């Protein structure tokens, strides 16, 4: 009997040892906590870029998508012949300099989505502080361009973040539907006044084509019905808007879309 017990224990130890060994052999990637930065007005471009590189390659997890152009634009080397990010960032959107563009790309990523990619990135302020984001901007600028971020940008952003936020609209007060569209990045996929993506049907003229009930269903349960010609993209529309939008926002959005005739 003891011989059997010994055999069973040996088999168990071998199996557990094998699995543990495999887990030790593969690359050991830990998820570090983004380092709290103490950069202030006196931060130099070098300090900022160095701090940004640490976040980019480490705790920020940026390389999961921004490798060499797989899920998201290449931020490491060249992107489709347009050069590294530091060299091309100032030419992405008309009227926006490099650091403004990069700040927007990190804090309102759905506002402008590079052609050929999906709007999958989220506002990085959900997980990073403003100085960490500015450090990232500085690092990206340093990759093929000149660092224009200064310590003052951080001070200004911190002041803005600390400033009292506009109070939520009281019940009954009019909600700006266009602002809601911007907040949720709808234009990344839907064209409005000739601008925006073409992944979903254009907002222009939507009120003439669809009823309010249809619009409500299309937002809350987008898979219930799919617009003709967009079947292939039916999985692109997020299904969580029904939970994310407040009742007032949803109603304002429906009213606005219904008015676009």
């Amino acid at each position, binding site marked *: 009997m003891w011989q059997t017990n010994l055999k069973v224990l040996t088999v168990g130890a071998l199996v557990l040892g094998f699995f543990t060994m495999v887990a030790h052999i593969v690359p050991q990637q830990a998820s570090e906590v983004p380092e709290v930065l103490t950069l202030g007005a006196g931060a130099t471009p070098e300090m900022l870029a160095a701090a940004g590189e640490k976040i980019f390659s480490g705790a920020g997890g940026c390389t*999961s998508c921004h490798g060499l152009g797989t899920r998201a634009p290449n931020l490491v080397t060249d992107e489709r012949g347009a050069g590294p990010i530091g060299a091309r960032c100032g030419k992405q959107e008309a009227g926006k300099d490099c650091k403004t563009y990069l700040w927007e790309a990190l804090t309102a990523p759905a506002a402008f989505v590079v052609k050929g990619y999906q709007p999958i990135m989220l506002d990085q302020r959900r997980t990073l502080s403003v100085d960490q984001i500015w450090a990232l901007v500085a690092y990206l600028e340093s990759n093929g361009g000149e660092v224009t971020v200064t310590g003052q940008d951080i001070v200004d952003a911190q002041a803005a973040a600390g400033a009292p936020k506009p109070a939520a609209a009281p019940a009954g007060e009019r909600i700006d539907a266009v602002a809601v569209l911007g907040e949720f990045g709808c234009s990344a996929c839907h064209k409005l006044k000739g601008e925006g993506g073409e992944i979903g049907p254009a907002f222009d003229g939507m009120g003439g084509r669809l009823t309010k009930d249809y619009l409500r269903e299309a937002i809350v349960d987008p898979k219930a019905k799919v617009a003709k010609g967009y079947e292939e993209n039916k999985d692109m529309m997020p299904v969580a808007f029904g939970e994310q939008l407040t009742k007032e926002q949803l109603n304002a959005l429906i009213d606005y879309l219904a008015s676009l005739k």
Partner: protein
Amino acid sequence: MTDPLYLLQAAADTAGAYGRFPGIGARNAVWIAAQVHLMFAAFVLGVPMFAVVTELIGIVTKDYKYDKMSKEFTRLLVFAYSATALWGGVLLFFLTTLYPKFWGYMARLFGPSMWVYIGIFFFESFTLYLYYYGWDRWNHGRAKWGHWGLGVLLNVWGTTVMFIANGWLTFMMSPPAGVTAETLPEQIGLANALMNMTWMPINIHRLIGNAVFGGAVVAAYAGYRFLAAKTDEERAHYDWMGYVGNFIAISTFIVLPFAGYYLGREIYEYNQTMGITMMGGFMSWLWIVQAVLIGMLFLAANYYLWLGMGRIPGAERFVPYTKWMLLLLLLCWLVWATPHTMLASREEMAAMGGSSHPFLNVLGLMSAKNTAVNIMILTTFLSFLMYRRANVRPTVSWAKNGTLVQGAMFGLAAAVVLFYGVYGYFVESIVRIGFSVYQVAAVILCIVGVTVIDVLLGRGAQSRGEIRWGQMPDRSQYALFVLAITFTWLMGLMGFARSGIRQHWHVYEVMRDTSTYASTPGLGYAANMITACVVIFLSLVSVIFWLGGLAESAAHKPKPASGD
């Protein structure tokens, strides 16, 4: 806010939020308590599913051995419930003393559901005692059906308890939109918090996972009793029990990847960043380790079946095929364990020419992996079919055609899987994801269709000879141990994945982990913890089995089983 003030505020927020645990630290203490509690919980939820199904088979077929097996496992549950509650208590005390701020938040939010939880746990325990101690009293006629109803009720209570606890842990992963760091727990709707976006996928995944686990533990128990058996009758009984346990474990396990796919999809829907962290970020290598484990499960399960054919007259005609099936399984295993996207430094990516390896990238894509796993499922199903058909000589007039149709179904399913596997390389990723549905549908249709034909073919069939239960080589039983240990380890690994994707958040993007242990460790560290948990759990389960053996009195000796 200026930086010194920010740091000061962070320190003030953290003060009193965490306790210390000697030696292994607070996080590891909670990790072990939570994981071992969960393993016992899976045991006491999975085994009743097994018991109630086998009791029903016993009632319908009037085959006493099913009833005996069902009762044997319910006896073990009585001990296992105490262990589950004990570890639940340990976890609760650890959370309240080591993570008081976090637990205070959860208690403020989920308080009423915690009262309901404990109330149902009380009913569940009482139902279990009634189910076990009333076994012999309510063993005939209508009373037996009533007794079986108690088993069903036991499962209902258990499932409800699990669903409530799942609400708490999934809230930590996917709090409802609109909940921020500033939101007070009292401002969050309890139902919204419980029924959050990943709640139902986790419920389904765990429900199936528990059934798998229950079957695997039963099979391992039977394996040990087989090795320790002193008579041929005992050996035959436990050989049969091991087969049934393994059958339930593997047949439900085949469904599990689909539930996992649903869960993964919901995680992506909830938050793309979280999904990418899970599949392509710092956790990407975890899926390679998972593939190694699941490959091991497939190999062990098939090996057990192939050895089992040795005790079935007529099975020798299938033996020559097994080496090719082994080769196919190994090839698919290699493909499945091939990495694709991985977290790498800028220099490493530049050296590779991308975030994916230029050659392995091709095999690491989901197209290849989905194809591999579906072929492995089909191969395993074929092993089951061969095992089932081994001693059967169909007598229906259409037997030959029926077998040909079965073969065609296998061929068609494999062709669909391969076609979409290859085609997936030529389309956009969003389209490619949809192809897995066709592949899965082809495999499921094949399994259902072939099984139906097989059942019809078996009507009035002649036997090539009785299965020689008990005449199984000892090494087959070790395959059952490998299965149970692998399933247990896999649970630990997936627990780490689910919990780890929150990274440095107690509640994702709502409540930051500001403790010393906020960073999420690498796989090696996690593997040490998982192994420690598995050793603790299996050691305690062995004690429970031993106690169960002690409780077996001469009065409970079985009547001879009809098939033994």
